[in-house]
């Protein structure tokens, strides 16, 4: 009885307690007032991220290290939620968590193709390790061995028996022919979202309703941005755009994707799906600057969907999922802040990309 009070009583209370530990919009604004990275780091130590940042020794305090420590809190949240999630819905949360493993896999593959001649393996592993999401033992990727294998083909061979094996067995033919990671990454993305959507589809009752809403909204954002980017940036053909996107979602339907692929005007489609987003036409006048803004607006919509999950009956999977997505978005905000402060970026250049403070509007 996954949608029952008994199944969700404990997790709902626990998640609400963890939710209270998330930063408020005011907290994020206060953090953005920090003069530089070290003062931001000091401020962050007074937040719920403090225990994770405390473990950094003074000599290790660097933006990348700080970001990894911040991600550790997200990993801890996932682990906590996964342990308490009812058995029926646990596979969905685990699959959602796998998104970070997918990110790690892409980072490893990118590391392997971008290695410059003359760099030792040690240096490459150290560099790649710094950008990996700290999954600890919750991963099937033999990351170091993959990097040390020295090539994409050998690294992929090490994924035997993992959920990525089958997908990559098809995509590797194209990689061998084209020597480009694009087909591998697209295949991995599509496979991940198919699995995730399939898990959401297996739920029943309120779990299904909220699972489809939150996972579907995440999927919408990615699917729509893929279709737009494939057309605007990569100039792909209609057939390719269709094959590189997915036919399902919460608000974005296959007909929308097919229309974009077929060359229809994109702005009206986006405005019809998301009437609350204004100035879409302006975004497409200069796509290079406009598309990141559109993606930001889509994330904002996602955040609103997540917040709506906390209203009403608390005994469903929506609350844990919404909390995890909100936590991820918070980590994204903090990553923007840390990178901005460490590179002394002017406030007006990064503040428009902070999600949390938009809740004050």
């Amino acid at each position, binding site marked *: 009885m996954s949608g029952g009070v008994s199944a969700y009583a404990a997790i709902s209370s626990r998640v609400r307690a963890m939710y209270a530990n998330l930063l408020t919009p005011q907290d994020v604004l206060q953090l953005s007032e920090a003069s530089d990275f070290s003062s931001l780091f000091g401020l962050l130590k007074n937040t719920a991220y403090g225990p994770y940042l405390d473990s950094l*020794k003074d*000599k290790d305090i660097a933006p990348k290290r700080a970001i990894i420590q911040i991600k550790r809190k997200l990993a801890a949240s996932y682990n906590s939620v996964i342990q308490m999630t009812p058995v029926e819905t646990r596979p969905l949360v685990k699959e959602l968590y796998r998104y970070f493993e997918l990110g790690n896999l892409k980072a490893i593959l990118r590391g392997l193709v971008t290695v410059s001649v003359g760099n030792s*393996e*040690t240096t490459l*592993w150290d560099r790649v390790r710094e950008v990996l999401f700290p999954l600890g033992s919750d991963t099937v990727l033999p990351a*170091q*061995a993959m990097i*040390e294998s020295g090539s994409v083909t050998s690294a992929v061979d090490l994924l035997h028996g993992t959920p990525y094996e*089958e*997908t990559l067995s*098809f*995509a590797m*033919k*194209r990689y061998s022919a084209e020597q480009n990671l694009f*087909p591998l990454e697209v*295949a991995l993305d599509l*496979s991940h979202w*198919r699995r995730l959507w399939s898990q959401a589809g297996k739920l029943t009752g309120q779990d299904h309703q909220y699972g489809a809403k939150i996972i579907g909204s995440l999927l919408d954002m990615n699917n729509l941005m893929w279709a737009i980017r494939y057309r605007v940036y990569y100039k*792909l*053909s*209609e*057939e*390719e755009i*269709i*094959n*590189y996107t*997915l*036919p399902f979602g919460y608000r974005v339907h*296959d007909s929308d994707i*097919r229309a974009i692929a077929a060359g229809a005007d994109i702005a009206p489609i986006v405005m019809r799906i998301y009437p609350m987003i204004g100035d879409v036409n302006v975004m497409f006048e200069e796509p290079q600057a406009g598309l990141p803004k559109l993606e930001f607006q889509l994330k904002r919509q996602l955040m609103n969907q997540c917040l709506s999950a906390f209203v009403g009956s608390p005994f469903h999977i929506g609350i844990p999922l919404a909390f995890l997505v909100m936590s991820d978005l918070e980590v994204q905000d903090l990553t923007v802040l840390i990178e901005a402060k460490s590179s002394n970026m002017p406030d007006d250049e990064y503040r428009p990309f902070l999600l949390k403070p938009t809740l004050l509007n």
Partner: protein
Amino acid sequence: MFFPEAMNEVQLIVPSKDLLAVTNVLGSRGVFHQIDSTYLGVNSGPNTWQEKAARCSALERRIQGVLQILSLKEEYFESSGFDSEDLDMMRFAIESIEADVKATSDQWANEKKRLEQLESQLRQLEPIADINVEVGSFQNSRYLYSILGIIPASNISRLETSLSRVPHVLFTLKEDVHKPVVWILARRSNSDMIDRAVKSAYLNPLALPEKFEGTPAKVAESIRVEIESTKRKISDLDDALVKLANIHKSELYKLLWNVHVNRMMAEAIARFGQLRHTYVVVGWVPTSDLPSLTQRLKNVSKEILIEAMPMARAGHPSNVPVALHNPGLLRPFEMLVNTYARPRYEEIDPTVLIALTFPLLFGAMFGDVGHGLMLAAIGWLLSSKKIKALRGMASLGGLMTACGLFGAIFGFLFGSVFAFEDVLPENPFFKQFFWMKPLENIIETLGIAVGLGIALLSIGLLLNLYNAIRARDWARFFFDPNGLAGLILYWSLLGLIASIFIHGFPIPWPVFVILIVLGALASVALSEPLKRLVEGYRPLIEGGVGIYIVQTFFELLEKFISMFSNTMSFVRVGAFAVAHAGFCLAVFVFAGLASGGTNTGFGYWAMVVAGNIGVVLFEGFIVSIQTMRLHYYEFFSKFFTGGGLPYEPLALPGAQKN
């Protein structure tokens, strides 16, 4: 055995020249739990030892790769002791072996790949084997464009969508969940669109070699011939690889050993603090191993400085690693304790206690000579590792054996053997061991179970007092809900009940009432302020007196309820003893029904056997959960905090301690 091993914090100042020898001693003894002491060093730049460890790791993987190619097991043979060879020399040796093996292994891999390709082509031809058309004719058609290939099953519908504007026909020739075979036919003028679509749908076209001509059946025949020839080549190459394995085996194992040891040593040294001419090494060593380790260190380094500080149990030494040293027989119970939590350094290790109480409670609930011996036999079989498929459960074997034997002992006491409740009590010899039948003495059985619970809970509370004394935690000793005040409260409540219900009880009930009030005040109502007073924290009351009073009221209520429920929880021990007899009775009722009331014949005995097996499986499972529950929730919660740091000594392969 009753406590974690006494530990010493050891600090070594090692001259650079003796670094390897000292690390070798630390690693080969297998008793030194290392602590990262890089922060004590002055060198904040890149650590060359880390780099060396990474290089060793890469070399180790290469050796493992060669071992795998040569079908040799990955094993560590300490043939020549530690040999700090130059890594470049070792790399050269590995490269030399790799080069020797490479030609044959590459050829082997190519032939294997070819075999897989041919077999795959053969499999893919199966769905179209009946088509009496030359496959090549589609490929070379002037007007028709055809692609035959394998595609991820999930991409088929998307591929069709993407081709919706292009006239085409798509056949799924082979319905396979993972690798379906599809065949697309379209006008040749649309070939570019078809190509884009199939490529982006990750369709892998079947690469049928041009040399195979004819109908699919003929092509399949040609491929079969080719497969046989490839298999012969692979077999020859296998023989060649076995010869190569014999040639390089000993050198590979020597290299593996050296690289592995070098890596472990480098990883250990990378965590030492590096000063200008010396290294600072910090860690923990069990007191019993300290003299021999010190002696060996001094043997290899005359100038080494060793400072050892015995660690007292007092003062919550949470950073001290905890080494448990129980005899092998108690290991399954140690596992049970560790599943709950690892004892802290200052705490009692409850393994010995649980080795007695766990089988005791289990046996009381599972009292049957036959069932107990069956369980013990299964346990012995598991721990003997005779059944390969069950080797993973070997650690459970000892536990099951002990529980089974106690079940058998209680079986004699309850007069039950394989559900027969009358055989033992009527036998002149076994009669002397017979105590009582739980089903016929229900109240007495439940009462004894509660008595057992009171004894266990009291032991738990006393152990908590002892732990508090060892830790010199006086606030916990006096005012903890499970401390002295808690114990007085618990015993006073029991005394009050006894004085009310037992006529002529020597102590009058008002005495217990006074003690209950005092105990409740000290262990609950004033526990927090008194603890703060003893520990010197202020304010004594947090959040205002009003909230404090309300909170205290509910805590008191909770305390009384939990004491009652903790004690009554043990009723289940008696209840299961009774239930066991009930189950046995049910077995014979069903057996009687199966025999049509004759109580004999195949049906009767088949039901008796099946019923006994059912009782063992069902009750064994339930009773083990209940026993674990009683220990984890009722017993351990009284005195066992847990959370100790595991003792993980630096140990090179074949270290002496292990």
